[in-house]
């Protein structure tokens, strides 16, 4: 019986692959060529595909992309919003048919994904690892639709053939901002506020710690990192309380990877006249004099890139794409008046070293332990 | 009637409907200037509605109003006040923690330039008014510290202060003691002497006889008659009001008291504020006897009832029914001991107004068979019982069993309560102000029922603020003052004056409590 089902899945996957390539048609040849040659850089690939718009125009317009937000909603100032921006860019640049469905409760994920499927979407995005299970089920129920999920990778062996994972090497920008924090701190003590502990947040924490250590080594001094968790991604008051205690215990820079909690962290920095480091997007607008820099995680760039690949008819299913500095999907903002040119330039050099593979920032505790040695 | 400036007020052909209900139908009222004119009618006859039309609180659907011979259009109370009309409502509208003067000038403040309150001048003006009409009241006392009678004077002063020439008094004596009523009538005569005109809304015949020059009677929204008070007697007024012959005198045979059913011994109860309200009170009620407690409101009657019915705790002393102590148990225990109570506040304590009449008839015995079985109500039995009660007590309308009790008139609501309590076959029936707010016809009915129950051997404790009622219904009259029974008489032993004096705290010669 079980074997039967597996067989069926393989057959279906095969059929899907066939239908997809058929969909891509002949016209996409040039665009996929453009993509593959420019593949090393997401920015370059954007130009590439807009150049290719003329050839894939009709296809792109027929290509329905639906996005299902997590419970944060589409205006969450975080990855939902960023993802939707990415899709809107797609609409603007190549005229793809994009739309979203908002989830209010976790129980909405399944029904919203189902609704998106009813809309005859060709590609359905799920935002956030909380949706991993629902996406997996939906993908199984609709083998002819492509699914993609932000911030989640599946085990390559068990991964459904029509699901694409999108991950970020968040440890890379975290390493860079950690380095900047290490270079900037005067007290020799910096802080980290996480949301709820998970693999994703580990990337931020250990990347950051390693960056701080790297700077400490360079400066030949000891810098300690105080890491705490808010057990929430939304409780700004708690973020403020944690950051306040960090500042009063001697920290002068606090980095957060905690969604809405971070708003409180930044507020605390503003009140205390200390520095905070933003996350995901350039959060300087929240406190221009206190947000030292931000660990950018440009979800929209990744969403755009993967969507384009799908439109172009490339096989994206069954794999996990990882985005980092190399793909220009993470980084730090260019604005750097608070840290000064010297630190900024040093940070850029660190970025180069990461790109070239000379530095491999750790993404979890084990790697971090090895990194120290 | 001709429109003439001899009349302070002429209301002609006033019609007012609420929904389908016609509250007033072509009612006329002509009040001569400088007279006291009473407006007589049963509850719900439309007296207050008519006055509210005059005061601008309601707009008449039809009809004209003339003041001093001139047609006016009174669209709201401010217009009425401008025309020199003042109204003292049954429920006072005073600010409790303001002084008398502050209350009087409220909304009509005397200000010096710059809008600063000129309290001094205001106080002087108030004092002048007080002296002119003999409305003795301390202008600096706070409302919460003065008696109800005084508060009423403040209301009258308030109206006069605003230049009222025509005063409307809505049931002014309902809350007053006999002495206060006398004083009020005196004040009314002073006002007339000064050229004011007074309309008094009432259903008390005795007071009309004592105070008024003319009387207009309305019944069920219809104009009945206008009579010179001197020309008619009380019986005649009553029949015009009710529409049939009524007996004003309670007819009964002498009581044949049996064993002691109910006994209160050295009872002490504190009020909400923790002050002693019932003070070492003792009383007894025998089977087949009506014991009436006479007293002015606020002398511990309420606290006594609350203690007996176990709504509140006692400090010390005992309450016994057939020898069993029941103090400080629960209201249900009281009901279980066959004590039935007709509470003075029938809308608050007596009925669940939004329950149907049928549901209300089983408020105590819904738990017992045949009205409920196995945890479920037997609606058929309840309905049967209710309809019997409606028939026995002549509750109107007769098809009201499945309608909310709210829709019934006060008298019919009271009939439901009395019927229900009597049906519980009590050993002791407590009737607190059982005729409050009822009209003559209903009062007659309530009194007859109480006496019938007495004759069947029930012990009855009647608590009333109406001295007349206690004097005429009770077999034994206990006078309560400051939480104590200060004296006790058999019916016919004493006159109203003696008891009135005792109620006010005076001592009777020779007898020392």
């Amino acid at each position: 019986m079980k074997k039967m089902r597996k067989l069926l899945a393989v057959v279906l996957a095969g059929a899907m692959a066939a239908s997809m390539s058929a969909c891509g048609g002949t016209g996409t040849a040039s665009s996929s060529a453009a993509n593959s040659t420019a593949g090393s850089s997401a920015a370059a690939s954007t130009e590439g595909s807009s150049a290719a718009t003329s050839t894939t125009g009709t296809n792109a317009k027929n290509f329905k992309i639906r996005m299902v937000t997590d419970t944060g909603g589409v205006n969450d100032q975080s990855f939902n919003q960023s993802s939707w921006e990415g899709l809107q860019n797609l609409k603007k640049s190549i005229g793809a048919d994009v739309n979203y469905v908002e989830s209010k409760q976790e129980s909405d994920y399944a029904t919203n994904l189902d609704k998106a499927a009813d809309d005859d979407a060709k590609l359905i995005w799920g935002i956030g690892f909380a949706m991993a299970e629902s996406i997996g089920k939906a993908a199984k129920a609709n083998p002819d639709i492509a699914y993609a999920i932000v911030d989640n990778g599946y085990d390559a062996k068990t991964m459904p053939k029509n699901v694409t994972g999108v991950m970020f090497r968040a440890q890379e920008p975290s390493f860079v901002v950690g380095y900047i924090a290490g270079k900037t701190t005067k007290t020799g003590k910096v802080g980290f506020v996480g949301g709820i502990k998970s693999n994703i947040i580990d990337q931020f924490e250990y990347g950051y710690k390693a960056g701080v250590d790297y700077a400490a080594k360079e400066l030949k001094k000891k810098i300690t990192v105080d890491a705490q968790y808010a057990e929430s991604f939304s409780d700004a008051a708690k973020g403020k309380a944690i950051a306040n205690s960090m500042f009063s215990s001697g920290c002068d820079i606090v980095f957060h990877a905690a969604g809405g909690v971070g708003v409180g962290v930044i507020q605390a920095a503003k009140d205390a006249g200390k520095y905070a480091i933003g996350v995901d997007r350039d959060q300087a607008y929240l406190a221009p004099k206190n947000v030292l820099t931000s660990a950018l995680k440009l979800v929209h760039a990744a969403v755009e890139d993967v969507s384009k690949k799908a439109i172009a008819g490339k096989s994206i299913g069954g794999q996990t794409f990882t985005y980092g500095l190399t793909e220009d999907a993470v980084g730090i903002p260019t604005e750097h008046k608070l840290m000064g040119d010297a630190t900024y330039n040093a940070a850029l050099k660190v970025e180069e070293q990461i790109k070239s593979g000379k530095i491999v920032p750790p993404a979890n505790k084990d790697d971090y332990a090895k990194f120290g040695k | 009637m001709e429109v003439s400036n001899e009349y302070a007020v002429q209301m002609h052909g006033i019609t007012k409907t609420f929904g389908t209900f016609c509250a007033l139908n072509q009612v006329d009222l002509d009040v001569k200037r400088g007279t006291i004119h009473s407006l007589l009618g049963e509850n719900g006859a439309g007296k207050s509605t008519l006055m509210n039309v005059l005061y601008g609180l309601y707009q008449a659907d039809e009809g004209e109003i003339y003041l001093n011979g001139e047609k006016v259009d009174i669209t709201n109370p401010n217009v009425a006040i401008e025309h020199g009309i003042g109204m003292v409502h049954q429920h006072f509208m005073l600010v409790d923690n303001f002084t008398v003067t502050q209350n009087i000038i409220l909304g009509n403040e005397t200000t010096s330039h710059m809008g600063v309150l000129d309290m001094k001048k205001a106080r002087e003006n108030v004092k002048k008014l007080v002296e002119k009409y003999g409305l003795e009241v301390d202008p600096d006392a706070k409302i919460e510290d003065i008696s109800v009678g005084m508060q009423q004077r403040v209301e009258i002063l308030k109206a006069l202060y605003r230049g009222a020439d025509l005063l409307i008094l809505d049931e002014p004596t309902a809350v007053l003691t006999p002495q206060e009523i006398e004083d009020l009538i005196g004040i009314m005569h002073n006002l007339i002497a000064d050229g004011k005109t007074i309309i008094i809304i009432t259903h008390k015949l005795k007071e009309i006889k004592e105070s008024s020059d003319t009387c207009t009677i309305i019944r069920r929204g219809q104009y009945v008659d206008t009579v010179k008070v001197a020309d008619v007697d009380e019986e005649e007024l009553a029949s015009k009001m009710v529409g049939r012959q009524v007996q004003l005198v309670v007819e009964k045979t002498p009581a044949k008291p049996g064993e002691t059913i109910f006994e209160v011994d050295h009872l002490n109860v504190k009020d909400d504020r923790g002050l002693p309200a019932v003070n070492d009170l003792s009383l007894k009620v025998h089977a087949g006897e009506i014991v009436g407690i006479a007293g002015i409101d606020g002398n511990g009657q309420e606290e006594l009832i609350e203690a007996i019915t176990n709504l509140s705790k006692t400090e010390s002393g005992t309450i016994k029914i057939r020898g069993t102590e029941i103090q400080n148990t629960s209201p249900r225990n009281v009901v279980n001991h066959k004590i039935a109570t007709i509470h003075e506040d029938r809308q608050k304590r007596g009925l669940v107004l939004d329950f149907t009449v049928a549901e209300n008839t089983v408020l105590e015995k819904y738990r017992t068979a045949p009205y409920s079985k196995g945890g479920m109500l037997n609606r058929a039995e309840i309905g049967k019982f209710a309809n019997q009660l409606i028939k026995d007590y002549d509750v109107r309308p007769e098809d009201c069993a499945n309608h909310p009790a709210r829709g019934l008139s006060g008298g019919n609501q009271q009939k439901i309560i009395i019927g229900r309590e009597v049906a519980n076959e009590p050993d002791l029936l407590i009737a607190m102000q059982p005729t409050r707010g009822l009209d003559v016809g209903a009062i007659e009915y309530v009194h007859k029922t109480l006496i019938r129950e007495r004759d069947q051997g029930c012990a009855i404790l009647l608590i009333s603020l109406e001295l007349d009622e206690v004097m005429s219904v009770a077999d034994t009259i206990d006078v309560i003052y400051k939480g104590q029974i200060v004296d006790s008489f058999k019916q016919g032993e004493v006159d109203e004056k003696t008891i009135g004096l005792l109620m006010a705290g005076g001592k009777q010669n020779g007898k020392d409590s």
Partner: protein
Amino acid sequence: MEKTAKILKKPITSTIIAIVCGFAVAAIVLAVAGYNPGSAFGALFSGIFSRPKYISNVIIKATPITLTALSVAFAYKVGLFNIGAEGQYIVGAVAANIVGYLCNFPPVIEIPLVILAGMVAGALWGGIVGLLKAKFGIHEVLTSIMLNWIAFYFSNLVVNSAAFHQPNSTAAYPVNASSYTMLLPNWKTSDAGMAAMSGTKWLREVMLKTDVNFGFLIAIAAAVFIWMLLYRSRKGYELRAVGLNHDAAEFAGIPVNKNIVITMLIAGALAGLAAALAITGTNPHRISTLSAFENNGFNGLSVAFIAGSSPIGCIFAGLLFGGLLYGGQSIQANIGAPSEIINIMIGTIVFFVALTAVVPKLAVRLEKRGMRNAK
């Protein structure tokens, strides 16, 4: 004219008028915002009715709010304002989740156990409110609001505790499959089930693509039970007497305070039942970190309000509300109008229901005009 007035006096008429007004205002808002109201409502209705599975989803969505509405309506009949249904729901969900995760008995034991756990927790939460009111006279709204927040943080505490937190998620471990209350959860994904359903598309859709479960049947049963309790039982007589006039009830010997506690226990149990059925009957079968109230209880307030606190009315109002919540997403998905539009519509309906006191008055005025014309 007289007939119109008579119809207008019926409560259901006012409710329907309120609903129509809600749609009208929403249409205006849509038009002002530059969307075609016709296509928006088209999207709404097709999002509710166009496929059997949508109807199924509406029913699923309606289940918890019908029960919380019942909780609110029941308490309201006893004169209590159960704004705490939200908190009672949350603790019910926590308890159901914990018990369903820790215990793994056969379904015949497991399902009642998990549901009972949710009800007991909700009852406890409501009971605290009742007790505080009965013993100390503290107003139930005050304590309920406090307890809502306590439940909120308590839930997050449990979700994030080492014992229950599922790593790499924002949620707790789900309950065991033995507590699932979906319709034939195992059979429908089995080959036999697939084969049996392969002929009927709608059945397959409803069964496989929605979490069709027994919850709504239980909600209907609960509504009937509450109606029986209130209007046919001796206890209900007491409860309504307390609700309509606790002074008279007290005077007649009905223990008011005891009945307040009982009421809050039952109301809490209903909210807890709503939560337990959501955990056992719908994905993801677990609680997760709350960043804001999920409004299962607060929506219950609105539903109870629309239903005029009638237990049976809660069923229909719950379906209406569930339809608006679920179908509302289609407005946004199909024509791009923000989901706030649907919130405005719901808010307007509730607002107009609050104004329904006006409708009978209007009826009176109509009658009067009729009489005047007759003269």
